[in-house]
C-alpha cells in the first residue's frame, strides 16, 4: 500500500544495503546478520538462570546417551547374559541393584536414555513439522482451503491427545516408529495455530508485498520470507513439545504399548510394577527411571520457557 515496488532494472541481489567493504555478497551479509542475532539471543538467554540449568542438564544427559555403548556396553539389555541374580539390592557391583532378570539397573537406566531421548526428539520433530506446514499453508493461502485446514486443526485440538495416542499405538504394531507416529500426529495442532497466527502477522508486513511485486511466487514467499520468521517460535514450541513427548512416551511404555524389545524408562517402570517392586518396597528399581524422566522433561521445559521469554519479553513467564 505504502511501498511502491522498485522496477526490476538492475540485477542486484536483494537485501544489500549501502556497500561498505569490497566484496559483500548477499550471503555473507545474511550470515553476519544471523551471527549477530544469535549473539543477541544468547546474551539474553544467559540471563535466565533456569534456562541455563536446563541447558546444562540436557548437555549432560545427551552426552550420557551418546556414550552409553562405551559406558555400559550394548549387552546390558540382554536377558540371557545377565551378570547378576534377580532383584538384588544395591551393591558395589550394581549401584542400583538388579531387575527380575538380573540385569544391572544403572546400566538399563543409562541405556534407556537413548530410547527416551530419540523418541522424544523424533516425535516432537514430527509434530512440529506437521504443525508448521499446516500453519504456514493455512496462514498463507487463506480462503476456504485454510478454513478447512483450521477446522481439522480445531478438531484435533479437542481430541484427548493421550487417548488418541493410546488408541493409535494399540491398533498399530509394537515398535518405536509406532510410538513416534502416535505422539507426532496427535500433538501438532497447538503449533499449527501458533504458526498460522505468526504467518498472518508476517504476511501483513510491507516487505512481503515487495517480494510479491518482484515476482516471488507462493513457494518462494513461504520458504524464504515466512519460514525464517516463524522459525524462532517453532524452536520454542519444539523444545516444549519434546518434554511432553517424553512424558507421553513413558506413559505409553508403562501401559505396555512401547516396543517390548528395547529398554526405555517408561518400560522399566512397567517391568518394576510387574516384578512387584511396589509391594516389596524396592525403591532403587522404581525411583531412578521416574527421576530421569522428570529431569529430562523439566530440562526441556525450562529451556523452552527461557527461549519463549527471550523471543517474547512481554510474556514475562520465565523470570
Amino acid at each position, binding site marked *: 500500500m505504502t511501498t511502491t515496488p522498485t522496477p526490476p532494472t538492475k540485477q542486484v541481489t536483494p537485501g544489500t544495503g549501502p556497500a561498505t567493504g569490497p566484496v559483500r555478497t548477499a550471503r555473507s551479509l545474511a550470515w553476519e546478520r544471523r551471527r549477530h542475532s544469535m549473539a543477541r539471543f544468547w546474551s539474553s538467554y544467559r540471563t535466565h538462570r533456569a534456562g541455563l540449568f536446563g541447558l546444562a542438564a540436557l548437555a549432560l544427559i545427551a552426552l550420557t546417551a551418546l556414550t552409553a555403548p562405551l559406558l555400559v556396553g550394548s549387552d546390558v539389555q540382554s536377558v540371557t547374559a545377565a551378570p547378576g541374580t534377580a532383584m538384588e539390592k544395591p551393591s558395589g557391583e550394581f549401584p542400583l541393584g538388579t531387575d527380575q532378570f538380573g540385569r544391572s539397573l544403572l546400566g538399563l537406566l543409562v541405556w534407556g536414555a537413548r530410547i527416551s531421548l530419540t523418541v522424544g526428539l523424533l516425535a516432537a520433530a514430527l509434530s512440529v513439522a506437521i504443525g508448521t506446514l499446516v500453519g504456514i499453508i493455512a496462514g498463507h493461502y487463506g480462503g476456504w482451503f485454510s478454513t478447512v485446514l483450521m477446522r481439522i486443526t480445531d478438531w484435533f485440538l*479437542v481430541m484427548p491427545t493421550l487417548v488418541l495416542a493410546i488408541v*493409535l499405538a494399540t491398533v498399530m504394531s509394537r515398535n518405536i516408529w509406532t510410538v513416534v507416529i502416535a505422539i507426532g500426529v496427535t500433538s501438532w495442532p497447538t503449533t499449527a495455530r501458533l504458526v498460522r497466527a505468526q504467518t498472518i502477522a508476517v504476511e501483513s508486513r510491507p516487505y512481503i508485498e515487495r517480494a510479491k511485486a518482484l515476482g516471488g511466487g507462493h513457494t518462494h514467499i513461504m520458504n524464504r520470507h515466512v519460514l525464517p520468521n516463524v522459525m524462532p517460535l517453532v524452536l520454542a514450541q519444539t523444545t516444549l513439545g519434546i518434554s511432553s513427548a517424553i512424558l507421553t512416551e513413558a*506413559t505409553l511404555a508403562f501401559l505396555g504399548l512401547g516396543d517390548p524389545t528395547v529398554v526405555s524408562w517408561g518400560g522399566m517402570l512397567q517391568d518394576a510394577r510387574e516384578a512387584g517392586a*511396589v*509391594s516389596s518396597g524396592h525403591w532403587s528399581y*522404581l525411583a531412578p527411571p521416574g527421576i530421569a524422566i522428570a529431569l529430562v522433561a523439566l530440562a526441556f521445559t525450562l529451556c523452552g520457557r527461557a527461549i519463549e521469554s527471550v523471543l517474547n519479553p512481554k510474556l514475562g513467564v520465565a523470570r
Partner: protein
Amino acid sequence: MSTTSTTGTTAVARAPEARAASGGNVHAYLLHVAGRLGGAAVSLLAVLVTSFFLFRIIPGDPVKAMTHGMPTSAEQMATLRRQFGLDKPMWQQFTDYCANALTGDFGMSYQFHAPVGDLIAQKVPATLLLTGVAVVIYSAIGLWLGTRSAWRHGSLGDRLNTGMALTLWSVPGFWLGLLLIITFSVGFGPLPGMFPTGGMESGNETGFAYVIDVAHHMVLPVLTLVAVGYAQTLLVMRSSLLDEMGSDYLTTARAKGLRDDVVRRRHAVPNALLPTVTMVFINLGHVAAGSILVETVFSWPGLGGLFYQALSVPDLPLVQGLFVVFAGAMIVMNLLADLLYPLLDPRVGR
C-alpha cells in the same frame, strides 16, 4: 471493572447474565450459542467417524485381534465376523454403527460379554467422583498460588512456587502414584502403611462409615492428580494476572487509597480469572481421559481403569466406546466454556 456499556436500554451494571440478556444482545448471544452448538455437533460427528475408521482402516484384522493369536478355524472366524457384523460392506457397517452410536449402543464387549454402554455407565460415577474432587482442589490451589506468585513476581516465593510447580508438572503421574503407594500404603522405614493400596472401598462399611472409607481410599489418587495437575492452572493464572498488573485501573484503585489486599481481590483477580475459567472447564473435559494412568495404578474402578483393561485384550468395541466418551466429554466441556464465556466477559462474543 465493568465499565463496558451495553447497547441495552435499561440497567447497565447488573449481573452479567442480566446484562447479556438485555436489549439487542440476546440476539447476538443466541447466534453465538447456535454457532457453538453447530460446531460441537460437527465435532461429535467427526469423533464418531474417527472411532469407526481408526479400527477398520488401519491394518489389523479385528477378528484376529479378538482371537488374540489363538488357533481358530476359518469357520469360527467367519462366524465371529457374522456375529459382529464384520462381513457386511463397509458403508453398511458404518451406517449401522452411526445409527447405533446415536442411541448410545456401542455393541457388545468382547471380554465382558455385556453391552459397552452399560459397562461404561457403571463406571462413570467413580471417575466423576475422583476427578471432580481432584479438579476442584487443584484449580483452587492453582488459583491461589498463581495469584500469590504473580502479585509478588520475581520474589523468592514466586521463584520457588513456579519452580515447584514446573518440577511436579514434569513428573509422570503414574510414577508419583507408585511412589506414594510405596511410602504411604506399603510403609517405608518406621512409617506404617496408612492408606489402602488401591480400590475404592473396603466392602463391608455402610452409611457414614462408608463415606469415610471411600474418602480414605481417595486420598492418594487425589493427591497424585493434584500434584501433577495444579501447575497448569497456576501458570495460566500467574501470566494472566501479570498481564492485568500493568493496567491503569489498578493504579487508580491504589490512588483511591485502597489496601493492597482489596486491590488484588476486588479489582485484579476477577479480571484475570477469565482465561482460568476456560482452563478449568477444559481440565474437566480432560480428566476422564487424564485419569487413565492414575486409575490404573490405584485400581480405581472407573473409566480409566476400564480403558486399560479393554486395551490389554484388546476389546475393540469397548475401546471404541470409551474413545467416544472421552472425546465427547472434551467437546461438551469446551462447549460449556464457550457458552459461559460471553456471560462472564461482556467483551467477548459480541
